[in-house]
C-alpha cells in the first residue's frame, strides 16, 4: 500500500474561494471559508463585528477601516443610525460570567463591547431578533436595573446597568425597546430603510410563469388562469394559478366558495413523465352537516383525470383525524372530504400537529439546549420536547406524498386547515425529494418564493416582525421546522444539495433580522400593496451575490435522483449547528467541505503543472523527432481522468 500522506504535499496551497466581485475590506472578513463564515454570520458573541450582509458592499461604498476601530464601533449599514450609547453596562454571559462594557443601540442593531478583555468581547445582533424585552426586578437590588431579553433565535440575553441618577434620561433599554418593536411603536421596519445595492436582484429570482413553464405548464390538462389577478378570488393566493384545463373560471369561483378562505386546489408540481401532480388547497367547508359541492367534486375529479396513469386520487390531510373532525364543529364549518362524495379519492391523515403544539415544542427545546446542556439526561430531555418527533411526522408525510407521486404515479391533493402552514411544509418537502431543481440554490429560492411566500404562509404573523406582542398565539416556528427538515435531508444525502448548512442558517437568521424584505408581510397581495419589492432588498440579492459561500462543494447533480429519506428517529438528529451554536463548547463542523475544497484546489494545481509539462514535452519531442525521424512521440496523451 502506498503511503497516504502524499496527498497533502500540495494541500497547503491556499485556495482563495473569495468571490472577486465581493468586497472584502469591510470589517474583519478576511476569510471566506465555510466554517468561519458560518461562525460569523450573525454570531452574537464575537469579536468580529460583522453581520454578514455588511461584507457585500459594492466597492464604491466600502471604506477601509482599520481593525482597531472595528472593535470600537459597529460598522453601520446604509441608513443605520446610532440611537443611543451607554457605558458601564453589564452583560451576563451565560457561559463566561459577567462582562462590563458599552452598549450601542441603532435603528437596526444592539451592539455590546467589552474592552476590558483581551481580545475584546463583542455582542452584535439585529434588534428584530428580540421577541421580548423586560425589566427584571427592581432598583432595590443594589441600585442596578436589570433587563432580560428573549430572542427568537434560541438564546436569551441579560443586561444590567446602574440606576440612572439623571431621571430625565431614558434608560438605553427603553430606547432599545422602541426600535426593537417598530411596528408596535409606529416606526418603520429597518428593511424599508436599508438601501444596499447588490449586483444581483433577488426579486427577479422567481417568476410564476417561468416556473410553471419549466414544469411544462400550460399543457393539455393544465392551464394558467388569471382569475385571481387582482386577488379577488382569494386574497392569500398568488395572482397566477395553474388549474385543470376543463374547469372554467366561473366554476372556479364556486369551488372557492366551498374551500376555506377561497383557497382552491391548484397545481404545485407536476411529474415530468407520469404527469402525476401535487395540488394544494385548504379544507373543504363541509361542516357538521356534511355539505357537498358538485363543483368541488368535479374539480378534484378533473385533477385525477389529468393524470392518465392512475384512476385514483390521494387526498393528504396534514392534520390528525381528530383535529380535522373538530374543525367541522368549532371552526366555521370546516372538515375533510368524505370518500362517499369524492369517488376514487382516498383520504389519508398525516397526524401533524398544529402551530400551537409546535410553538410549545420549540420552547421546550430551547429550555433543554440553552444555555447549557445537562450532561445526564440529554436524550430523554430531547425526547420530551417532541421536536424531532414532529420533524419526523412532517418528513414522513412528505415522503408519503413523494412516494405516491413517484412510485404510485398517482396525483395527490394536500391540505390542512387553511393550507398555509403544514401544507407549505408538505408540498415543498415533497417537491425537494422529487425534483433536483429545487435542490440547487436558485431552485430552493424559487421553491420558497413559490410554495411559501406566494401561497401566503403568514410570515408576518408567525414571526411577529417588529411586534412586541410576544404572547401572540399566532406565532409559530412552522418555517423553522421546514428548514430543519431540509437540513435533515442534507444530512441523509450529503451530495444531493447545492447549498450548505450555512445557507440554511443564513435563511433563518434573516427570517428574523428584518434586514431584507423577503420574509415581510403575510401574502403576495400584502407585499404588492406595500410595494415591498421596490422598497426593500431581497435576501436572494445578498445570497446570489456571493453564492460561493453557500455552495456545497460535494454537490453532484445526479439526474433523476429522487430522494427517499429514512424517516426514523434513528437517522434524525438535532440540528446542533443551529440550535446549539451559541454554546462555546461546540465546534462548528464543516470540515468535509473544507477538505474537499482544499483537494479541489490541489487538483487544479496539479492539472496546471501536468499541462505545463505536457507542453514542454511536446515542444521537446517536436525538436527531437526532427532530429531522430520516425521515433514515436505520441505516448503521452493529456489525461484528465481515468476510468
Amino acid at each position, binding site marked *: *500500500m502506498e503511503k497516504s500522506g*502524499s*496527498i*497533502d504535499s500540495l494541500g497547503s496551497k491556499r485556495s482563495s474561494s473569495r468571490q472577486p466581485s465581493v468586497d472584502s475590506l469591510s470589517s*474583519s472578513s*478576511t476569510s*471566506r*471559508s465555510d466554517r*468561519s463564515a458560518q*461562525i460569523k454570520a450573525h454570531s452574537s458573541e*464575537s*469579536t468580529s463585528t460583522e453581520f454578514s450582509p455588511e461584507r457585500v458592499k459594492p466597492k464604491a461604498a466600502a471604506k477601509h477601516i482599520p481593525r482597531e476601530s472595528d472593535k470600537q464601533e459597529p460598522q453601520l449599514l446604509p441608513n443605520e443610525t446610532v440611537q443611543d450609547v451607554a457605558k458601564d453596562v*453589564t452583560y451576563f*454571559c*451565560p*457561559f463566561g*460570567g*459577567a*462582562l462590563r462594557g458599552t452598549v450601542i443601540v441603532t435603528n437596526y442593531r444592539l451592539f455590546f463591547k467589552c474592552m476590558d*478583555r483581551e*481580545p*475584546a*468581547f463583542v455582542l452584535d445582533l439585529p434588534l428584530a431578533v428580540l421577541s421580548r424585552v423586560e425589566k427584571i426586578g427592581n432598583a432595590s437590588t443594589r441600585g442596578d436595573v436589570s433587563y432580560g431579553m428573549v430572542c427568537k433565535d434560541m438564546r436569551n440575553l441579560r443586561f444590567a446597568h446602574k440606576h440612572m441618577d439623571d431621571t430625565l434620561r431614558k434608560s438605553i433599554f427603553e430606547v432599545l425597546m422602541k426600535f426593537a418593536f417598530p411596528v408596535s411603536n409606529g416606526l418603520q421596519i429597518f428593511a424599508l430603510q436599508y438601501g444596499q445595492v447588490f449586483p444581483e436582484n433577488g426579486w427577479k429570482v422567481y417568476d410564476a410563469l417561468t416556473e410553471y413553464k419549466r414544469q411544462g405548464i400550460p399543457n393539455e390538462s393544465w392551464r394558467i388562469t388569471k382569475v385571481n389577478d387582482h386577488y379577488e378570488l382569494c386574497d392569500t393566493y398568488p395572482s397566477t394559478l395553474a388549474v385543470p384545463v376543463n374547469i372554467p373560471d366561473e366554476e372556479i369561483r364556486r369551488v372557492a366558495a366551498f374551500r376555506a378562505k377561497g383557497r382552491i386546489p391548484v397545481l404545485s408540481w407536476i411529474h415530468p413523465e407520469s404527469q402525476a401532480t401535487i395540488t394544494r388547497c385548504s379544507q373543504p367547508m363541509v361542516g357538521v352537516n356534511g355539505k357537498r359541492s358538485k363543483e368541488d367534486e368535479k374539480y378534484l375529479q378533473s385533477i385525477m383525470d389529468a393524470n392518465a396513469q392512475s384512476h385514483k386520487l390521494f387526498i393528504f390531510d396534514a392534520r390528525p383525524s381528530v383535529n380535522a373532525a373538530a374543525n367541522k364543529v368549532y371552526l366555521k364549518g370546516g372538515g375533510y372530504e368524505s370518500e362517499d362524495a369524492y369517488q376514487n379519492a382516498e383520504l389519508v391523515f398525516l397526524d401533524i400537529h398544529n402551530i400551537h403544539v409546535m410553538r410549545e415544542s420549540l420552547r421546550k427545546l430551547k429550555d433543554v*439546549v440553552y444555555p447549557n*446542556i*445537562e450532561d445526564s*439526561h*440529554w*436524550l430523554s430531555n*430531547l*425526547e420530551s420536547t417532541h421536536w*424531532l418527533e414532529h420533524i419526523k411526522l412532517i418528513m414522513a408525510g412528505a415522503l408519503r406524498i413523494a412516494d405516491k407521486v413517484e412510485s404510485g404515479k398517482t396525483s395527490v391533493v394536500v391540505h390542512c386547515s387553511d393550507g398555509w402552514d403544514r401544507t407549505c411544509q408538505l408540498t415543498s418537502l415533497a417537491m425537494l425529494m422529487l425534483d433536483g431543481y429545487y435542490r440547487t440554490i436558485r431552485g430552493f429560492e424559487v421553491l420558497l418564493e413559490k410554495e411559501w411566500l406566494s401561497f401566503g404562509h403568514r410570515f408576518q404573523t408567525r414571526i411577529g416582525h417588529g411586534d412586541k406582542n410576544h404572547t401572540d398565539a399566532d406565532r409559530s416556528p412552522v418555517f423553522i421546522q421546514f428548514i430543519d427538515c431540509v437540513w435533515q435531508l442534507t444530512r441523509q444525502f*450529503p*451530495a*444531493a444539495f447545492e447549498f450548505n448548512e450555512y445557507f440554511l442558517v443564513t435563511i433563518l437568521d434573516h427570517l428574523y433580522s428584518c434586514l431584507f424584505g423577503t420574509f415581510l408581510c403575510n401574502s403576495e397581495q400584502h407585499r404588492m400593496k406595500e410595494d415591498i419589492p421596490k422598497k426593500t432588498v431581497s435576501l436572494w440579492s445578498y445570497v446570489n451575490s456571493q453564492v460561493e459561500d453557500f455552495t456545497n462543494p*460535494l454537490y*453532484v447533480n*445526479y439526474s433523476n435522483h429522487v430522494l*427517499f429519506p*429514512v424517516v426514523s*428517529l434513528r437517522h434524525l438528529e438535532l440540528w446542533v449547528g443551529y440550535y*446549539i451554536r451559541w454554546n*462555546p463548547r*461546540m465546534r462548528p463542523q464543516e*470540515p*468535509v467541505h473544507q*477538505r*474537499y475544497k*482544499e*483537494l479541489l484546489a490541489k487538483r487544479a494545481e*496539479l492539472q496546471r503543472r501536468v499541462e505545463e509539462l505536457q507542453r514542454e*514535452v511536446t515542444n*521537446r*519531442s517536436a525538436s*527531437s523527432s526532427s532530429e531522430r525521424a520516425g521515433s514515436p*512521440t505520441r*505516448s503521452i496523451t493529456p489525461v*484528465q481522468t*481515468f*476510468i
Partner: protein
Amino acid sequence: HRLSIFDRQPFRLYIFPKYYYIFVIANKLCKVFFFFYCMQHVLFPGEIVVNEVNFVRKCINNENGHDDLWGKLICTNFKVSFIPQEDPPKQNAHLSHLLLAEHDVALTCLDQVVTVNDAKGKKKVLGSNQKLKFNPTELILYCKDLRIIRFCFDEAGPESAKKVCLAIAHYAHPADLHLLFGFEYQGRRYHERKGLAKILKTAAEINESMPRMSPQTPVYDCPSDWDREIKRTGATEWRVCSINERYNVSQSLPEYIVVPASLADQDLRQFANCYSDNRIPLWCWNHPNGSALVRMCNVADPIAQKKFEQRIFNAITKSHPTCSEVIKLDLEKSLPNILDIQSAFCKFRQSCVIDPFEESEERWFSCIENSRWLEYVRAFLKQSAEIVFLMEVKSVSVVITEEEDRDLNCAVSSLVQLMLDPHYRSLSGFQSLVQKEWVMAGHRFLDRCNHLKRNDKEECPLFLLFLDCVWQMINQYPAAFEFTETYLTVLSDSMWIPVHGTFLFNSCLQRTQHLTEFAKTKAIPPGEDQSVYFPPVWEWSQQFSAKEQTLFNNPMYVGKSVARVQNGEVKTFKRTKKAYSASVKGSPASVVNGLRDGEGTLSRRVSFMSELKPEFSSVKDVVESPSERFFRDWFSRPFDQQGLLLPLLLPSHIAVWKLFFLRWVPEACIPKGGTVTAYHKLCQLVDEIEMLQCQLKHYKGPSPCITPEPSPCKPHSVQRRMYFNACSADESPSLPDFLTSSFPFTPVGNLCRRSTLGTPITKFLNGAKIWLSTETLNDTV
C-alpha cells in the same frame, strides 16, 4: 464469483520482477486448488463438513416471504454456510470476504443458536452436547456481529434438520481453544505454502516476499519494536527491560516492557511481588514535553504499596525532564466496570437490532439513554481527555491504575495516545497501538470475547466500546484519521473469525504456549516466527482482496509526509515535537486550516473565558475547572489535524455509530444516501489527484520523450488507493445504485425478525424483549 476474487487477491504484484515467475506459478496452483474447493462448497484447508440439510429456506426480510432463498444449509468445523440453489441477483454492495461468502457465518460469531417449533410453540436455546426433543421448524442464529439469521425447515427432512441444528450448536461451543478452526487452518496453510516453496526451491524468497502485513505493523514481541517507540517519542529516560523474558516474572505481561531508566532489574523484581500477577507498571507513551503515560494494576497490600509505590513514582519523576510530579488516577472510580459495559451493550443491541423497528421508534431516545452505552462512550472519552489535559498542559506524568490493568487501562491509554499523537491516527500506527495497549498488555480477548462460551460473566465488548470511542473522534474530525469507519467495523468483525492470532488469547504467554504446542503438533519447525504461521489480523490479505482493502483508506486524511518508522530508523521525533508546539499555540497557519480565519474565531471563543467580576459572581456562578477551560479554549481555536485532538464532549455530540449498529437493519438503510455518497465523491477526486501526481512523476522521470514504452502509470497497472475511481470527463455523474447508508454491508437477508403475522413465532419473537440468553429462557423441553 468467488474465483474472480481469488484471482485478484493472493499475490499482489508489488514484488520485485525477479520473483514474479514464482507468483505466476503460485497463482495458477492456487486457482486449481480453489476450483477443487468450489466443488466441495468452498471448503478451506482443514475445513470439514459436519452435517448438512437440503431444501432449507433462508428468510429474507419480507412480510410475504417471496424473496426467501431456498438452498442447502451446511455446518462445517469453521462456519455455518447456506448455499442458495440459484444465485440471487448480483449485489455489488457486498463486501466480499475471502473466507466467508455472503450467507456464511463463522461458528465463533454465533452468539445464540435457537431452535423453534412453530406449531408446538416450543423453542430452545441450544448449547453444546444437548438433546432436542422436538423437530425444529426454524433455526435462528443470533450473531456477535449483530446479524440475526433465520432458516425455516418446512420442506426439509425433520431429522436432518434437527441434526444440523445440534451440530451447529455443538460446534459453536468448542470444548477447547485448540478446536477453533484457525489452528487447523493455519497449520495446513503453512504447509501448503511451504510445500509450494519447496517445489520452487525458493522457500526463503517466498517467505520473504510474501507481504506479512500490508503496512508493516510492529507487534511488540521483540525489544527493537519498543526501542523504536522509545526513540520515536523521545522517551530518553526510559529503557526496554527484559526481566520478563520467558515470562519469568509475570504471566500476563509481554516479554519486553519499558521501565524508568533509573530502575534496575533487581529493583523491579523486588517490586513485582506486590502487584497482582507481578505486573510491574508499564510505560505506554511519552509526550514530547517529557511527561509519560504509565499503566499499572492496583497494589493489593497497602503496606507494600506505601513502600514500593513511592519508589516507582520517584523513578517516574526522575524520568521526567523537569522532574514533574506524578499523578495517579484510579480509573475504576470514574468508569463503568466490565459488567456495566456488557449490560449496556445488551440493551443497546436490543434497541438497535432486536426490537421491532416501529415499536422501538417511539421511545428510541430514551431506550438509547437507558442502555447507557453512549454515556459510557462519553465517560471514556472524557476521562481520556482529562488525562490529555494533565499531560499536555500540566506536563505531569500520569499513572492510570485499575485492579488488574487489563481492561479499562487498555481503552484509556489508547484513547489518550490517539488524542495526543497523530502517529496513531495513521492506519499502521493505529494497528500498532492496539497491538501495544491491548494485545501485548494482556487484555483477555479470549474471555472478553467468550470464544469458548464458558463464562458469560467474563464476556464484555470493551474493545468494541473503544472502537466506538475512536469512531466518535472520526465522526468529529473526519480528516484526522487515515482509516475509515468501515475499517473499524471490519476490525470488530474480525474478532469473530478465529483465524488470526490477535483476538484469541488472554495474554502473550497463553499465545506463546498455544502456538508452541500448535507448532509441535503441526510439525512446524521451532524458531519459525509465530506471526508467519499464525498471522495476526493485521495481515488483511487473509480476509480481503487488495481492492476491498482500499475501503479502509480515508480519502480526506491529512497526513504528514509520513511519521513512519522504517527499517528501524527513526526520523520523526523532531517533526512530532513541532506538531505539538503548533497545537499548543494554535498556530492558524497550519496546512489544514489555511483557509480559516484563525484570529476571528480565536478571539471570539477566548472571550468566553473571562473571569467573573466579583460583584456579579453571586448572580451567575460559572464554575469551570482548569481542564474545562482548557478544552473550551482549545475548541475556540483552529486545530491541526496532525496535532492534539480533543473530542467534543457535549452529550449532543456523542452519536450512535450507525454503520456498526444499524447496518443490518433494512428499515434503517438509506437508499442512495448516507455519508457514503460524500465518500464516493471524495474518493473520485482523490483518485484523480493521485493519477495526476503519477503523471507528474512520469514526466519528471528520465526524459520521458525518449522512452516511449508503456507508461508505468497506466491506470490498470497501478494499485489504486481509492475504492472509487475517477470517472472520465464525458461520463455523466451517476451514483451507483448499490450505495446505501449500510455500504459496504448489505442488510438484505441478514436480519429477519418477523415471519408472517400472527404465528406463534412472531409473538414469541416480539415478546422476547431481550437477546435470548440461556439464563432467562426456560427450556420448553
